[in-house]
């Protein structure tokens, strides 16, 4: 914006100064002995052309020279260089086209065949134009493409050279907010346009020199929730499984390549419980299930981590993980047997993640862990506790109000906290542990006015046995229904934006958020169509999404383990890695959940990730473990050993990185022996460790290029 403002100011100033100079008549060289003279010089092909005598050093601008006494055979000179083309249109006007010129200010002269000249001194300045090479949308619904929505708003990245920081740009002739990021990068915010079509993109230097990319941007009515191409390369399959799952083994990825996107997404969305895996997970739990007494916080985690690593329905765990971060509830707020409540909540998320958003909210609101965590059990009608009511809106359904009250007001939080009353904790009859029950007497049955609606609002779907249908004091409606019903746009956009940010990319364009929200609303708040749309969308396979995302520690750790199928003990992952990496499942830092994206990056965090990779790779203890990662004996070369591991990890190695690794294999692994023959049984230990070293080094690239 600043660049543009400065530029306009410069031009206007130039015009004021130059107008009298040019129009002042004749110029100093209008000698008496010749019969022609120049009155003014204009450059027609540059912006503000009426008053801006600037040209591009590239040549080719159309220059208009007005004066008197011009004759057909005359030639225009810029300094000492003749114009590439001179066209004497009339005795009072010439159009001339400069050839390539060095930068600088020069005289303009009109000469006859004898070399006699009429000259206007310092009449035109040639500037080096900003050079542009390419452009691409880096956000919005067409990230990675040269398209823009007709609503505008996405960001174009223009790559070129010689940018000095003051350039601005036009799209389809309209100035667009532009920020020069570097001598080679400029970001432009795309303005709206009435209809679709290809348009020119101009980059304009401070002096007004325009460089045009003809038809470089296409406005389109399509948005990238459109289905992506069905064919999946191995790389795209890896990308899909890094988002919709915690990575996948080579066999699973190959199956996805064979099946294509539509079938693969269909499979991902179909949860078929594997009773063996489910039972094995429960077997890691307390022998009594549900437990009858106190359990450790690790008990819940053992169960879930086993499922994350082994569930053949990987999206089920990925979505549960997403919703766990969303409804961030910590077992650190529970004790004794109540720690089990977290198991209930995670199981609830696992069971309902592709059902109705309305039902999921309703279930979570009445989940025992949540009622303890956000004080639902202590909130009473006479003295309500605002904790749950505030976070229900702010963090779970509508987002932070901007202060306008458009989402909710502080007064409505108080009213909602009266609605969310009725639960309490008690010692279960005949047992020594706690349970959470609903008692109508604890519910504030009075009228509350929320979103302008007066009613006896309460929890949705209160337990039937506590309803007193005799005197009609049960709630007249549920808070979830009220919230989704009265704030449908905020509610649908809030969760859809979060899904897009988690599964696709950060800061999604409002248009694509709105489009996905429409999918949610028009499907009666069912999540399955939303996930189906999202996972098959062009957005998910756009350049911006493919550029990667910083995995949170849980995704980082479990993706590596699922991809390599390395069997690291659950307790070791838990204590040695997730705890120092500061992401222990079921123990979020607060109700806002964990940070995301680049906020995970820090020096120590990177070292901890590197050390996790080492610890996992150390689990490859036998020759057989390693053989499985390499091409068959007899077919090995240093290069295909490196390539095999890179492919396994989904790493695209640059040429120099690949060369370094091949050199390592050749020199450190004594190429001939293991490459061609397999491991030498007499020297297994060293070779094993060095091959692990290769894996570790390659894994650094996996860390550095996360998807």
């Amino acid at each position, binding site marked *: 914006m600043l660049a543009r403002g400065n530029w306009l100011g410069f031009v206007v100033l130039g015009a004021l100064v130059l107008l009298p100079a040019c129009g002042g008549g004749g110029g100093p060289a209008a000698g008496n002995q010749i019969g022609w003279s120049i009155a003014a010089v204009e450059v027609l092909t540059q912006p503000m052309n009426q008053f801006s005598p600037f040209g591009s050093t590239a040549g080719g601008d159309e220059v208009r020279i007005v004066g008197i006494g011009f004759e057909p055979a005359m030639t225009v000179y810029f300094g000492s260089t003749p114009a590439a083309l001179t066209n004497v249109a009339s005795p009072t006007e010439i159009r001339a086209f400069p050839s390539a010129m060095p930068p600088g200010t020069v005289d303009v002269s009109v000469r006859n065949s004898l070399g006699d000249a009429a000259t206007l001194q310092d009449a035109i300045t040639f500037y080096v134009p900003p050079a542009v090479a390419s452009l691409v949308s880096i956000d919005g619904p067409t990230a990675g493409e040269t398209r823009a929505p007709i609503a505008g708003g996405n960001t174009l990245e223009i790559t070129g050279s010689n940018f000095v920081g003051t350039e601005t740009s036009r799209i389809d002739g309209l100035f667009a907010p532009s920020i020069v990021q570097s001598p080679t990068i400029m970001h432009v915010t795309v303005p709206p346009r009435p209809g679709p079509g290809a348009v020119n993109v101009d980059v304009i230097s401070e002096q007004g020199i325009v460089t045009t990319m003809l038809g470089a941007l296409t406005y389109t009515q399509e948005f990238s929730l459109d289905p992506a191409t069905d064919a999946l390369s191995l790389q795209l399959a890896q990308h899909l499984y890094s988002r919709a799952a915690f990575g996948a083994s080579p066999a699973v990825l190959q199956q996805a390549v064979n099946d294509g996107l539509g079938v693969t997404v269909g499979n991902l969305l179909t949860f078929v419980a594997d009773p063996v895996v489910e039972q094995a997970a429960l077997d890691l739990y307390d022998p009594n299930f549900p437990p009858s007494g106190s359990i450790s916080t690790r008990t819940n985690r053992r169960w879930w981590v086993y499922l994350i690593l082994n569930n053949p329905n990987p999206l089920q765990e990925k979505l549960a993980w997403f919703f766990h971060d969303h409804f961030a509830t910590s077992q650190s707020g529970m004790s004794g047997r109540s720690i089990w409540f977290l198991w209930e909540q995670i199981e609830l998320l696992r069971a309902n993640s592709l059902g109705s958003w309305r039902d999921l909210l309703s279930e979570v609101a009445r989940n025992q862990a949540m009622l303890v965590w956000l004080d639902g059990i202590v909130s009473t009608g006479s003295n309500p506790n605002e904790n749950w009511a505030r976070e229900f809106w702010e963090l779970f359904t509508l987002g932070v109000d901007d202060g306008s009250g458009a989402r909710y007001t502080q007064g409505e939080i108080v009213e909602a906290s009266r609605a969310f009353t009725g639960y309490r904790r008690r010692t279960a009859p005949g047992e020594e542990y706690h349970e959470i029950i609903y008692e109508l007497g604890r519910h504030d049955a009075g009228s509350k006015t929320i979103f302008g609606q007066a009613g006896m609002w309460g929890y949705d779907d209160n337990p039937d046995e506590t309803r007193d249908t005799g005197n009609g004091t049960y709630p007249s409606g549920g808070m979830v229904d009220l919230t989704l019903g009265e704030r449908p746009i905020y509610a649908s956009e809030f969760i859809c934006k979060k899904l897009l940010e988690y599964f696709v990319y950060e800061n999604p364009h409002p248009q694509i958020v709105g489009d996905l929200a429409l999918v949610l609303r028009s499907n009666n708040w069912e999540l399955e169509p939303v996930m189906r749309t999202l996972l098959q969308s062009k957005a998910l396979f756009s350049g911006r999404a493919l550029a990667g995302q910083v995995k949170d520690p849980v995704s980082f750790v479990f993706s590596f383990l699922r991809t390599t199928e390395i069997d690291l003990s659950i307790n070791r992952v838990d204590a040695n890695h997730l705890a120092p990496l500061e992401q222990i499942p079921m123990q979020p830092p607060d109700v806002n959940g964990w940070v995301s994206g680049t906020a995970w990056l820090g*020096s120590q965090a990177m070292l901890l990730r590197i050390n996790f990779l080492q610890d996992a790779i150390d689990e490859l203890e036998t020759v057989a473990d390693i053989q499985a990662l390499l091409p068959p004996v007899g077919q090995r070369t240093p290069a295909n050993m490196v390539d095999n591991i890179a492919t396994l990890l989904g790493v695209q190695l640059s040429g120099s990185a690949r060369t370094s690794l091949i050199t390592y294999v050749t020199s450190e692994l004594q190429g001939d022996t293991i490459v061609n023959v397999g491991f030498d049984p007499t020297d297994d230990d060293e070779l094993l460790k060095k091959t692990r070293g290769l894996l570790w080094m390659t894994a650094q690239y996996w860390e550095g290029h996360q998807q």
Partner: protein
Amino acid sequence: MKHDHSCTHCSRRSFIKGAAAGAGLLTVAPIWSLRPTYAAGGLPNNGRFVVVINMFGGNDGLNTVVPTHLSEYLNVRPDINLINEGDGSGGSGGARPAGESLHALSGGYELHYSLADMGQMWTDSELYVINKVGYPRANLSHFTSMDIYSYGVRDIDGNGDGRGWLGRLADVYCTDPTDPLAPLGIVSVGVGKRRDFQSDETDPLIMSNVSGFRVDSDNDFPADHDLRQKMVEDQLAVEPDPSVEPGVSIQNANKQAYDLVDAVAQGTAAWTDPNSRYVTGIGSNSLLNNMREISKMLSGDFGTKVFYTGIGGFDTHSNQAGRHETLMSRLNEALQRFKLDMQDRNRWNDCTILVVSEFGRRNFENGSDGTDHGHGNVFFVTGGRVQGQQIVGDMQNSELTQSARFLGFDYDFREVYAALLADLGADPALVFPESYTNTGDISLY
């Protein structure tokens, strides 16, 4: 509300660096210190440093510095007040355990009974108490309020530049590109990459503990360790695509890790705890743990000017009394033991500790013997040069009523931060670009 500026942030970084070589865009000239590795190159090399301790969740200031002289305090807190004895539950009349007593400051204000050592700091004229710290237009959301504190800007969307206040400090004063230790000018300990540290130019060091700040590779085969680490470092120095996020940010974090790993290990290797200042309480007191790590980093002589750490659990909506007592004990223990350690090492006079929180709590207790979100809150400042035994931000009964709901603010938090920054030799105006009310009342040194 997430404010992610990572894309523009890194591109801008590379541009500034590229341009600075020729154009001298950076306005702060490097001040050459005697030590070539001095981190905060733009600040005086006088050894001074600040430790910010954040009590995450919104500390209940009224039960931390208790206005015992105001009758309304008792009225609005019948069960959880600290004047009367009781167990803090319904009908108990108070939350002060029998045998415990508050620690008198002045003017009727008294410290929580678990803050005995801080009471002694007051007596020793080393504790400065600032009541009613906040910012205009109270926001009761934890996350919005934390963002306001982190960015140092009230109007985040209008006036923010995407950087945290410490990020701006780092960008101005810790930018010497020839100094690999520049990121050590500001160090986050045990609280992750909070938005306070978001920067354009220099990423402050984000660490959790010194002993884990190392590369393990292949413990049982050390002969190859150095070779591999070197290869990885070399490759990371030229790898990923410099124009695409998040590869750039990952790259930068990795590079910084490898740049610093040896310096941190070697600089802190000689640290010991001869007087066992950090022995008791480790394990349960994460704040004391973090203070120990700060002590280790100080022993490395890295020239760190600001350490940022914290402790969570202050969102006491229910059954507050016991939880708050534990938290106060941890704060008291961490401050006292760190102070003794700094005295042992002759660093107490270099040290200023600031204790903050994103907001205070409601005047009145709720029905669950807890308190809901409020606003104006108490800050503590202590340190060897702090001219303490002062308390500012007086309260009236009328401010403590149920209808008043919560305390307003007398002091913008930036005025307090600015006082500490000025003592470090920094220009607060470069760190807090948005205008705020400066009372001039706060005189810490």
